[in-house]
């Protein structure tokens, strides 16, 4: 009971009262993102997913830009300068809509914009960040290669000096936003170590064919980047980043958003299952009335809300400046696999409708398979935590 003697009511959609931990402004942020998704994405995303495309991505980016979502946790250069928890709240809401939408935002804000904001020159920042924050320019982030995923240190894409220019050659794979990007942050090995390059995508020799035949994140653009004698001036190199800590710092930002985002997808699956179970009747009563269904609902509620608590905890640490990369690994590892468990359970509650795009569940479920892999696979995060716990790195012999 609180001071006025009234007990808050149990809310099936917020069983632990976590919303009460959020500020008025954070709830307003959530409402704005929710309204944008409700009007511009949710009614269409099942169809986009089925067709495997994201039409109108530029308009969508502008809408997101107007709201202030893109690079929202960065300061200056037209960015909204919000807190880590604010950013998390937005990610949860975006991914409750679709992981593809959250991926668009993560790659733009936490990978491409963050790389420029953290490691770029003043000119890079002035040239790109305001446009990217407004959604006028779209960015992508090329680290993964066809033969080098979890182990980016062995990447093959390389940049050589030629007079005062750099010339880039190689291939990147699985690059979100690649085919629609105006600018690519490309990581390549050089004589000095791994360096990042800000490459306008209209540079001769640069192409980004779209990857098809995906059965996950279908409402998201994924591409190959082909770099064939791509010549950029000396200033294209990110001056501050030499070595893998450049790209890894960006990934850490994006992973943090996924910790929140994954719980959003899970939450939406649980909501769908809960609503469905209350209206679907079999054997003469709502399926919500069967103990087996209630057990599933309870397990899902525990999973989703433990995940939200973990996300909030990490967000508060991030705002306090005490968040460690191992803790982000902890969150990414557990919240994504948890979300997948919830999606699979929710899918069973919906029966045949569980596999239909009329409902969000199967879309979330297959999307989460990508989320499980990108930004460090579950195994990589387990190894990171394992190393932190034992002091013994087990990544390689």
């Amino acid at each position, binding site marked *: 009971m609180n001071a006025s003697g009234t007990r808050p009511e149990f809310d099936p959609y917020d069983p632990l009262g976590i919303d009460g931990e959020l500020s008025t402004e954070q709830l307003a942020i959530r409402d704005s993102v929710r309204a944008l998704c409700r009007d511009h994405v949710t009614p269409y995303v099942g169809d986009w997913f089925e067709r495997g495309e994201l039409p109108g991505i530029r308009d969508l980016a502008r809408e997101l830009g*107007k709201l202030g*979502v893109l690079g929202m946790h960065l300061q200056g250069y037209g960015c909204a300068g919000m807190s880590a928890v604010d950013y998390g709240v937005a990610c949860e809401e975006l991914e409750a809509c679709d992981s593809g939408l959250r991926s668009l935002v993560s790659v733009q804000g936490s990978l491409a914009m963050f790389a420029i904001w953290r490691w770029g020159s003043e000119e890079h920042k002035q040239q790109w960040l305001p446009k990217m924050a407004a959604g006028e320019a779209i960015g992508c982030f090329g680290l993964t290669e066809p033969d080098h995923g979890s182990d980016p240190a062995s990447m093959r894409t390389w940049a050589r000096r030629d007079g005062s220019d750099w010339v880039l050659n190689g291939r990147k794979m699985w690059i979100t936003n690649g085919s629609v990007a105006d600018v690519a942050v490309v990581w390549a090995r050089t004589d000095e170590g791994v360096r990042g390059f800000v490459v306008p995508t209209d540079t001769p020799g640069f192409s980004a064919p779209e990857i098809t035949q995906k059965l996950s994140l279908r409402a998201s653009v994924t591409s190959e980047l082909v770099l064939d004698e791509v010549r950029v001036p000396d200033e294209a190199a990110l001056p501050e980043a030499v070595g893998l800590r450049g790209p890894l710092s960006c990934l850490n930002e994006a992973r943090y958003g996924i910790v929140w985002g994954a719980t959003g997808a899970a939450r939406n699956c649980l909501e769908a299952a809960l609503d469905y179970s209350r209206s679907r009747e079999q054997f003469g009563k709502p399926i919500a009335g069967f103990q087996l269904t209630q057990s599933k609902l309870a397990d899902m509620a525990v999973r989703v809300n433990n995940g939200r608590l973990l996300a909030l905890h990490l967000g508060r640490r991030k705002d306090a400046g005490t968040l460690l990369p191992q803790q982000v690994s902890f969150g990414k590892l557990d919240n994504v696999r948890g979300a997948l468990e919830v999606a699979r359970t929710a899918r069973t509650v919906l029966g045949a409708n569980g596999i239909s795009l009329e409902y969000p569940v199967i879309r979330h479920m297959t999307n989460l398979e990508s989320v499980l892999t990108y930004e460090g696979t579950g195994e990589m995060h387990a190894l990171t935590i394992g190393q932190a716990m034992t002091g013994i790195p087990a990544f390689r012999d």
Partner: protein
Amino acid sequence: MNIVVLVKQVPDTWSERKLSDADHTLDRASADAVLDEINERAVEEALLAKEAQGGEVTVVCMGPERANEAIRKALSMGADSAVHVSDEALHGSDAVQTARTLAAAIGTLESVDLVIAGNESTDGRAGAVPAMVAELLGWPQLTYARKLDTDGQSVSIERESDAGVATVEANLPALVSVTEKINEPRYPSFKGIMAAKKKPVSTLSVADVGLSADEVGLGSAPTQVVSSAPAPPKEAGVKVTDEGEGGVQIVEFLSGQKLV
């Protein structure tokens, strides 16, 4: 130009709404409260006028303390300041008393050029308050606007009613009420949400706007709700399966309802 927007906090149309059993006033605790959608459009229109003409947008709201959530939303959208008339004495005020209170609140502001309101709220739906406020201010009223233009001196609207569309003009100051068709309101941006925290909201009592407590509220309301009943549930419609006679059956149905 100085624009006032009248806003109201209403129960979310998506949640179930109830009248209290005791006095037939709205049970505000029973539903989620939100800024009335139509008011969002009024705020949007004021912001568009401000963006074109310069000036300030002030939100005026009468309602219980909780109504500050609706005010926050209007400020997050971009309004500059707010006046919130909040007083126990206002509970149960009817449309006439509400209009008096709002007109008095507008009277506390300096040099208002234009008042914009929604044509009717989604809860009470009396649709009378904007006209009454204009009357009390002695200003021209331009109601049911689906389009609004102003050059800072005069205002012109497209007024849409069952009778058709008319263009109506007036010199400022004036009051305009807007319909659903006027615009698509913006979402509060993150910068707007953060800026709203620092915007001034003056909370006024009934006495502060120059009225006395016995002029407002349920006790002295000129109109009264005597009883209320929930709307009867919708009955299942008539389904006509066309087996060659479908057209005839539909005409029979329509003429039975005296529709043709």
